[in-house]
């Protein structure tokens, strides 16, 4: 199916989308290699969906271009649509149709023809849907609905999958199972483009892109992002301390010159301190807590860079 065997599976080149005077997406570029899980993050309204819509061939970009497996998303939209799978955050199946009928419908839409039953059996097996085949889709629980949506999206064996917040509102067990399945797909060479708001899911991706105010702020592996110099300024360091039930003086720490990004993760206090504050001073300020050097989390990365972008916007 792919015209260029070793080129990127998904490629965005200076994608720009304007709606009237509003610029929804500005100069966004990135490549995703075959078999990669690419995490696409960003606050709501930052332009995530618009990028996906342009890549899937639903919107013609104002400038730039998107390519899927070497095919131009807007000029070869029909071929692009046939080689991608799409699963959205919203449960977008027919609740009054059974699992079997939903699958049968999507199979027909993709023109599977004689292969319909073979493919239906395959996805039912892959996603363990067999016990629910005759059940109405509307009567399934959240996790099973997502499985069915995934099964429908996989019927035509797409090489590239777009998953728009696939785990929104499903329980942790179903979430874990879904991710296991996504790894399995990636292992078979399927390229996955996933949007999410969950940091632990972002950590699971091979590479991440972070879009904010229509622009791609960051692009790289989770480790590369954490090592970004903008996240940890010169001379500053990340510290963490176990709390063991001690109430940390958050307000006092937050007001201290040279300390920022004070957060609590479960049983750990996490903060950024520059050279004005030494490790013993920290312990003193925090009422005896033992600090050790830590690393920024992905959340730190996004929060700090969003703030930086916000400051730059206010004082051009």
């Amino acid at each position, binding site marked *: 199916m792919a015209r260029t065997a070793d080129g990127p599976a998904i490629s965005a080149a200076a994608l720009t989308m304007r709606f009237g005077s509003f610029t929804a997406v500005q100069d966004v570029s990135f490549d995703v290699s075959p078999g990669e899980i690419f995490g696409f993050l960003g606050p709501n309204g930052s332009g995530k969906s618009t990028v996906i819509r342009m890549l*899937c*061939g*639903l*919107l013609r970009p104002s400038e730039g271009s998107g390519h899927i497996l070497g095919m131009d998303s807007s000029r070869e939209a*029909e071929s692009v*649509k*046939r080689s*991608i799978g*799409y699963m*959205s955050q*919203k*449960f*977008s*199946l*027919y*609740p*009054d*149709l059974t699992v079997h*009928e939903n699958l*049968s*419908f*999507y*199979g*027909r*839409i*993709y*023109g599977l023809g004689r292969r319909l039953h073979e493919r239906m059996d395959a996805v039912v097996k892959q996603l363990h849907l067999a016990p629910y085949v005759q059940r109405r889709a509307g009567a399934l629980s959240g996790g099973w609905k997502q499985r069915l949506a995934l099964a429908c999206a996989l019927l035509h064996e797409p090489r590239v999958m*777009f998953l728009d917040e696939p785990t929104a509102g499903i329980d942790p067990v179903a979430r874990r199972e879904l991710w296991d399945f996504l790894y399995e797909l990636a292992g078979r060479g399927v390229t996955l483009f996933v949007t999410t708001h969950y940091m632990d899911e972002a950590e699971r991706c091979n590479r991440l892109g972070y879009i904010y105010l229509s622009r791609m702020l960051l692009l790289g592996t989770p480790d590369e992002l954490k090592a970004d110099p903008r996240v940890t300024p010169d001379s500053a360091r990340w510290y963490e301390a176990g709390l063991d039930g001690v109430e940390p003086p958050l307000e006092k720490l937050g007001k201290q010159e040279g300390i920022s990004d004070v957060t609590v993760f479960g049983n750990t206090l996490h903060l950024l301190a520059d050279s004005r504050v030494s490790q013993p001073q920290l312990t003193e300020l925090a009422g005896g807590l033992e600090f050790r050097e830590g690393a920024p989390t992905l959340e730190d990365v996004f929060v700090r860079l969003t703030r930086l972008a916000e400051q730059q916007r206010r004082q051009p």
Partner: protein
Amino acid sequence: MMRGLGGIIYKEFIQITRNPATLVITLLIPIIQLIIFGYAIDTEVRNVRTQVLDLDNTPQSREFLNRFRATGLYDIRGYVASASELESAIVSGQASVGIQIPSGYGRELSGKRPAEILVLIDGSNNTIASQTMSTAQTLGIRMSIEQLSGSSPERSLLIDVRPRFLFNPALRSANFFVPGLVGVILFLVTMLLTSFAIVSEKELGTMEQLAVSPVSRGGLMLGKILPYLLLGMIQMNVVLFFAQFIFKVEIAGSLPLLELLALVFVFSSLGLGLIISTIAKTQLQAMLMSFMILLPSILLSGFIFPRESMPLPIYWISALLPVTYFVEILRGVILRSAGMEALWDEALILTCMGLLLLAIATVRFRKTVG
């Protein structure tokens, strides 16, 4: 061009048979409407409640009242003793007509001055009022002629108007309403159901899913039209069957011609439904918009009121409604056994309307489906 058509049709049929609302709309509503319009709406006026104040009380006055009774129009329910009682009977709604015969009526009948009879009519229902008035006047003229000639009235008439009804000789209301009703029901159901077709996908979020699939716009649109076209045609035949079975409205003309012209008509109502579907954001909005078109279609299409007596602006509005022409076709084929040579102009207008509406729907469809 038509990619995905089979899949969409497959799904629509499952949804039609599974959704109780669709079945109610297609089967129950038409039958209820048929019964309501067929039985309840009756423009023939009979048995109008009448009170009498007979101050004369002579054989002549009683003879006069008998003639009134014999028309079948006036149902003399009772007698009152005074003029004020007669008036209050009408004000209170006990009677729609009050007949007052002054004392000396019998005497004046053979005298020089005309004998005066007062007929009070409740004008609030204009149909009853105009019928009772004209019948009372005709009766007065007839009795005057009889009185003057002293013999049977027909011989003495200078002009004798003899009406002969070519169609619907019994002047049954059902014959007038039922054919039009077939058209209104067909319009209602096909427009309403197609207007839900796209909106429901938008509401469910499945439109997005269809948009990223290789389904073509043509396939999606036709897939949304064909099942309802079939449903509409089945339904029209069910209604026609009931019309013959319950209301004894026989189809005088050619049934195949009727089916063909119905097919032409249905395209315009499907087109309207699709246009609504692309504009409305929810099914509720789609329903309200459908009723905005439906109401004038019922009231102005000539289904209930004759178009000829409408004020000119209203007449032109009625000319824009597809139902107007289909009601004309239905009455033509069912009652007057009209053929294509008599109905070609209506058929031509309907074809143009259907093509125009489907073209608009296609353009609108392209915008919303993306």
